[in-house]
């Protein structure tokens, strides 16, 4: 086995660490077995010689100590919400309350097998049932399915419902209208669902104009997929008018609920004219992102779409809850079993603590924070859409790019040096060089002020020492990567070095 060849300590506190395949020693293990209390089966006898492998070559051989250190050291290379400000636009990186984690680990929940008789898991069912009602009330919808595992999965599910609705009416439709500011998953979900995506131009103020929709709307349009507030952080003021146009032509309105944080308790998608929406529990309802999931993307619908919901649904029979699979019009299952239950538990815990008393305060705090940043940084960075924003504000690198040759990537990387997670840059596509900043409801004024100082420092550096920005970041454990080469010659797994093969 190779050993640590690079500098063993970078700060005396963080270590360089090879992959788990390069540490340990042959024959070592980190697992403890109970003695086998039944006769040991002979694999060859049970399965046949061809069906038995010698070993899983190159699997790790490490102790529990090795495991603990290895992954602890890796963890120390991550920035996270609990380290600091994470204004990654559209991702709603709010604080993940600690009690949620504990509740989700209650063994009475975690140990339940999904196929247990309903009567043994009434607690699980009740939690899910209550969560459905709360989400329905918050969104102004009539019914909710908890099955989808993430936002994009919710989109797919919602679009399938729209599709099934039209098919059921005997008028299958082929097109989905999607504004140009939409998140990439929107067109991708539409395509996966067999729809043709028609891109809708946002108006000059960054919101969709009813006339644009009216123009694109025809009898082959199954629905319109909108995000409200949209990804520019702006409320789609004409939403009701748009919905009327769409409904008039027999279309349905889909709401990407990724930005629901902005309007909790203030306005409900169901009241704006939406027929179906997905929630991101891992955004709005504080469940952790886990470094890339798991999330949960429940879908809420108006009653017209209820018959098509994924099977099963939870129903109450004389106070006893059960899964009902007798759903002839259902689109079927979109996921194994019932959804990301552990994530649902966390969201339920959050909703219990927030309750009706604090729900609106979440939106207020989120929107106030975004507008505070908007005003505080206006002038330093270009604001393509300068009006009052909702939960997030989108700046651009226009000034810096055109005047100093510094782009949004450079600015973001420099923020890393200053102790902040960068904003979102990959979209909205209608803002070239976007810096999409979502401070969320849990960030304090002091944190915002520190971020404002850092952004101002960066703006100053753009003017004075632009090379600092091209070179950034210089402080973390790694600097900028050569991603082009990585994609050209992808190395997607560890492989043993020559002598080990």
């Amino acid at each position, binding site marked *: 086995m190779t050993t640590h060849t690079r500098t063993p300590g970078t700060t005396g506190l963080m270590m360089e660490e090879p992959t788990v395949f390069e540490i340990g020693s042959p024959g070592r293990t980190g697992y403890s077995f109970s003695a086998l209390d039944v006769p040991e089966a002979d694999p060859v006898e049970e399965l046949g010689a061809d069906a038995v492998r010698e070993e899983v070559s190159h699997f790790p051989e490490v102790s529990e100590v090795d495991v603990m250190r290895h992954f602890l050291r890796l963890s120390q290379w*991550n920035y996270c919400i609990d380290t600091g400000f994470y204004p990654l636009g559209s991702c709603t990186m709010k604080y993940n309350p600690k009690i949620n984690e504990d509740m989700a680990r209650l063994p009475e929940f975690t140990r339940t097998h*999904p196929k247990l008789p309903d009567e043994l898991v009434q607690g699980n069912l009740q939690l899910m049932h209550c969560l459905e009602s709360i989400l329905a009330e918050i969104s102004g919808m009539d019914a909710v399915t908890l099955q989808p595992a993430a936002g994009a999965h919710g989109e797919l599910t919602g679009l399938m419902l729209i599709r099934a609705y039209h098919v059921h009416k005997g008028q299958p439709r082929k097109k989905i209208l999607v504004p140009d500011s939409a998140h990439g998953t929107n067109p991708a979900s539409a*395509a996966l669902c067999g729809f043709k995506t028609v891109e809708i131009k946002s108006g000059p103020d960054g919101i969709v104009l009813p006339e644009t929709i009216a123009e694109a709307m025809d009898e082959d349009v199954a629905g319109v997929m909108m995000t409200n507030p949209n990804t520019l952080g702006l409320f789609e003021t004409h939403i009701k008018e748009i919905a009327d146009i769409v409904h008039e032509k027999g279309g349905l309105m889909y709401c990407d609920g990724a930005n629901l944080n902005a309007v909790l308790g203030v306005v409900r998608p169901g009241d704006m004219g939406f027929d179906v929406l997905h929630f991101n529990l891992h955004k709005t309802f504080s469940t952790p992102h886990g*470094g890339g*999931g798991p999330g949960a993307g429940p879908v809420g619908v108006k009653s017209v779409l209820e018959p098509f919901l994924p099977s099963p649904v939870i129903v109450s029979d004389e106070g006893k809850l059960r899964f009902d699979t007798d759903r002839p019009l259902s689109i079927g299952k979109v996921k194994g079993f019932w959804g990301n239950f552990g994530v649902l538990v966390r969201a339920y815990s959050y909703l219990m603590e927030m309750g009706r008393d604090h729900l609106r305060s979440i939106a207020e705090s989120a929107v106030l924070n975004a507008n505070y940043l908007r005003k505080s940084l206006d002038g330093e960075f270009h604001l393509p859409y300068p009006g009052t924003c909702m939960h997030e504000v989108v700046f651009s690198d226009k000034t810096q790019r055109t005047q100093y040759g510094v782009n949004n990537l450079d600015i973001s990387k420099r923020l890393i040096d200053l102790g902040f997670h960068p904003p979102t840059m990959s979209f909205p596509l209608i803002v070239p060089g976007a810096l999409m900043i979502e401070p969320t409801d849990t960030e304090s004024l002091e944190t915002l002020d520190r971020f404002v100082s850092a952004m101002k420092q960066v703006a100053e550096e753009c003017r004075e020492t632009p090379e600092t920005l091209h070179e950034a970041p210089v402080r973390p454990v790694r*600097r900028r990567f050569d991603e082009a080469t990585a994609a050209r010659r992808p190395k997607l797994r560890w492989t043993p070095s020559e002598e080990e093969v």
Partner: protein
Amino acid sequence: MRYLPHTPQDIDRMLKTVGIGSIDELFETIPKNLQRTTPLEIPPAKSEEEVEREFARLTGLNRAGEFLSFLGGGQYPHRAPRVVDHLLRRSEFYTAYTPYQPEVSQGTLQAIFEYQTLMCLLLEMDVTNASMYDGATACAEAALMSLRVLRKKNKVLIARSVHPEFRQVTKTYMVDQPECLVEVGYGPDGRLDRNDLKAKLDGDCACLIVGHPNYFGTLEDLPALAEIVHEAGALLVSTFTEPLAFGLIPGPGRAGADIVCGEGQSFLGDPNFGGPSLGIFSATEKNVRQMPGRLCGEATDADGRKGYVLTLSTREQHIRRDKATSNICTNQGLMALAATIFLSTLGKQGVHRLARTNLSKAAYLKKKLAALDGFSLAFDAPTFNEFVIRCDKVTPAEVLERLLKKNVVAGLALENDYPELDRHLLVCATEMHAKEDLDRLADELAAL
């Protein structure tokens, strides 16, 4: 509110900066007639202590803890070593986002890289992605990927012995062409019916999807199937729900499977009522650019140091939008990390021994049950840690009901998903069952 930081003074200061007089002005772009004027009708706010009490009430309604269960069928009773949860509780792991900024996400990225490698080693495949939602959606994505790889073909064959939920979700995902999903039956040994396969395998078939082990716990003859399928110019998709089997049996890649995918819950421990679990998805190098999901790759930084980045993202929705290979964005990252830690802890010796322990427990139970009067084995091909018994005298429903009264969940009745298997129970035994548990099931069944 302890998570909302603003004091009245903070708010005043901020409003002043924003240049408005009240919070409500922030919402002026929202038409007044749409805005709510009354609070939502949801429960009132609770303190932390009250939240705990509410959860005590809910968990008190669950009675599963008092029962001895032999349920498998896609989710298996295993326990993760304690060190796994200790590491998952590291804020740096669970409160980070998808690693878009590699400089401050090397921890997550290296862990994904290790996960991808572990799965490749276990399944004997070239490439594994960073995770899918679960086994069922992974299976569905495999069908769609096969259709992308072999663009001229439009049919997907799926073994009836593949997990019913995998089949259902695949059908849902094939929204455009549900009729193109064609089932292939199983033979009396519980394996794929090769005659039926040969009858249905034509030039339009993009792939055959099998389970290995399949839903009956049975191992397929993968090399033979690979030969047949490849001969017909189609891909072999090998799915699984119990990847622990691969600690003992060869990875499907060895037999030539083109896509190997399935459910990774066994590497997480507790079933968690079915989620969050882990969708594992592996393919051959040659088809990597048709793969769904995120991929982590090695890269070199500005100082020449090795590190990791998300790569090949031109396949993905944030770049390709409606031309992406999948719409997946958030996946099951933390679960992939959990599996990585669990498997590292088990290691080479452990994964073999744990698999063998499962085999031994199930073999012991199988032998005992087969010997009982009124029960027989349904299929005779080899199985790993679950198998199907036939209830010759009492109906499965009655077996289940009567054992439930004795606080035993005897298994899963197959009739719902397989009307033709109306006397059949799927029974599972793992390392979590002590010999006395296994004996107890046999005794209770004998006493019926």
